[in-house]
């Protein structure tokens, strides 16, 4: 069931629930109103990986801060595992990685994780053991005695993920966890997120790195200009309809330089290609007719590929749709 703009009804399964969440800031001397988040409702089920997508400035971080009690909502409410936010009992069951984290740079990772564990009331002996395990798990064993001020951005991101896990939380909320990581680091964090799911934890993370979402998330929410545009499994959000068909041909010299003399059907366009002549035909284009014509002209068909909607297409569609809607709202 796709849950466009809706809330699922299974109360027992909710790891996180936001109801009509809104935040309005009053900025500057004239207290100018800025609506960062508008009437946002969604639910994250226990044990799933939930991606929170949106372009920069869409309201992702503001929403996450409301989930963690760092910002108070102007309207609406948040529940974590059935507990209201912000309460100590709710926070005890959640691990959080802030965006671009900065930590006490005079501490070593061991000292820092011990401090974070103490804040979560983890007993001293357990803290030491967990710190040791987590340092190895996030790949920082070689730097455990080094102060954090000597860490790169990617290493700090790993420390941030370790501190989010130090009290073994049921729900892990990560704000842009892939930021600052190289491709190998991104893969490691992706694998870690999948491991957390296999351990039965719920992972909620914000990002705008779409390939990571496609590889990890069970469900996603897309937020644009403070509004939730879509919520649901990727397979249901992405349209299965054909967008276009891409045909790549090797054309003989007689058909003109690069197939310049080969007539294209209405709505078709040439694509840049290193292999030969690449043509994109519209969804309702006559592919068979074009292929017959090309073969008759002596061309060799290298590939014929249907193109359906990708997450990037959906993201762009929603982002542009949001901007267009905002433009319409702004017009008198």
């Amino acid at each position: 069931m796709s849950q466009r703009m809706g809330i699922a009804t299974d109360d027992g399964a909710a790891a996180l629930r936001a109801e009509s969440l809104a935040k309005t800031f009053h900025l500057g001397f004239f207290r100018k109103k800025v609506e960062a988040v508008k009437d946002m409702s969604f639910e994250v089920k226990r044990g799933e990986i939930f991606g929170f997508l949106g372009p920069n400035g869409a309201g992702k971080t503001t929403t996450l801060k409301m989930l963690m009690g760092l910002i108070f909502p102007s309207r609406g409410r948040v529940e974590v595992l059935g507990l209201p936010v912000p309460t100590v009992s709710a926070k005890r069951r959640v691990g959080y990685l802030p965006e671009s984290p900065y930590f006490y740079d005079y501490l070593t990772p061991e000292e820092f994780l011990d401090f974070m564990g103490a804040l979560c009331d983890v007993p001293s002996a357990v803290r030491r053991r967990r710190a040791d395990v987590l340092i190895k798990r996030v790949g920082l064993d070689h730097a455990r005695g080094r102060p954090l001020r000597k860490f790169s951005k990617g290493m700090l991101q790993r420390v941030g993920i370790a501190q989010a896990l130090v009290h073994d939380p049921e729900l892990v909320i990560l704000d842009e966890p892939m930021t600052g990581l190289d491709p190998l680091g991104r893969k490691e964090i992706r694998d870690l997120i999948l491991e957390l799911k296999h351990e039965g934890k719920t992972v909620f993370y914000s990002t705008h790195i779409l390939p990571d979402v496609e590889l990890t998330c069970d469900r996603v929410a897309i937020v644009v200009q403070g509004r939730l545009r879509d919520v649901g499994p990727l397979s249901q959000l992405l349209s299965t309809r054909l967008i276009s068909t891409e045909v790549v041909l090797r054309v003989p010299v007689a058909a003109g330089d690069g197939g310049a003399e080969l007539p294209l059907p209405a709505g078709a366009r040439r694509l840049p290609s290193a292999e030969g002549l690449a043509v994109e035909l519209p969804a309702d284009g006559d592919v068979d007719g074009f292929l017959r014509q090309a073969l008759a002209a002596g061309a060799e068909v290298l590939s014929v590929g249907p193109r359906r909607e990708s997450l990037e297409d959906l993201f762009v569609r929603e982002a542009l749709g949001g901007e267009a809607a905002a433009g319409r709202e702004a017009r008198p």
Partner: protein
Amino acid sequence: MNRVLAIARNTFREAARNKILYSLLFFAVLLIVSALALGQLSLNEEIRMTKDVGLTGIDFFAVIIAIFVGVNLLYKELDLKTVYTILPKPIRRWEFVLGKWLGILLTLAIQIGIMGLVLSGILVAQGAAPDAAIAKAVWLLFVNVMVVTSVAVLFSSFSSPFLSGFFTFGIFVVGRSVPDVRLLARKLGGAAQAGLEGVTAVIPNLHLFYPSGAIVAAERVSLHRDFVTPAYMLWTSLYGVGYSVLVLGLAMLIFRKRDFV
């Protein structure tokens, strides 16, 4: 309470690894030791000179350190965004403020303790008998910085370090001059008197913590004679702690309502 102590321990650790505080402590000790040289300029008043210069040095540097650290205490957490990692942990916001305050008080207590020990060591080296007045005076200076730190923390809960430092120093100067301000109020009379008396009612009476030379219970107290009584110590300490708790409570309320954008 464990969470508060964890914050306090980390705040102390941060101060202990801060080179600026070591520099200030070094200069404070240097000033106290320089009392030895100044004593040579006075005639048979070396010990008196050491006490006066030494305690002035402790007072000055302890207040400078208290303002410097106090105004940065919460602001630094916001500016460096470390608060975004701490507050999502299962900790209440007031526990965070209390932990920071306790950590900085521990730092100040150790610094003032070191300065007091250096001063006492110099006095003993000069041939003075161990003196309870110095211990009492050093304790009062500690209560004094407790109040100043609390005021600094209050300002830092909603203002920049520069403004917080400016206001805290202003309150320190006026607070130390409360008897003079009251005298001025009586001389001016009328609305000015009411206004100034209102100010002295709100601002902490920091003069209580540096009473040498003042009239207390119709008697002039002096470090060099009988210093203040145990009852004075008790009531002044209670006043300092009470004022600090009140101001810190206000800082906690402001911090509790803040959005950390």
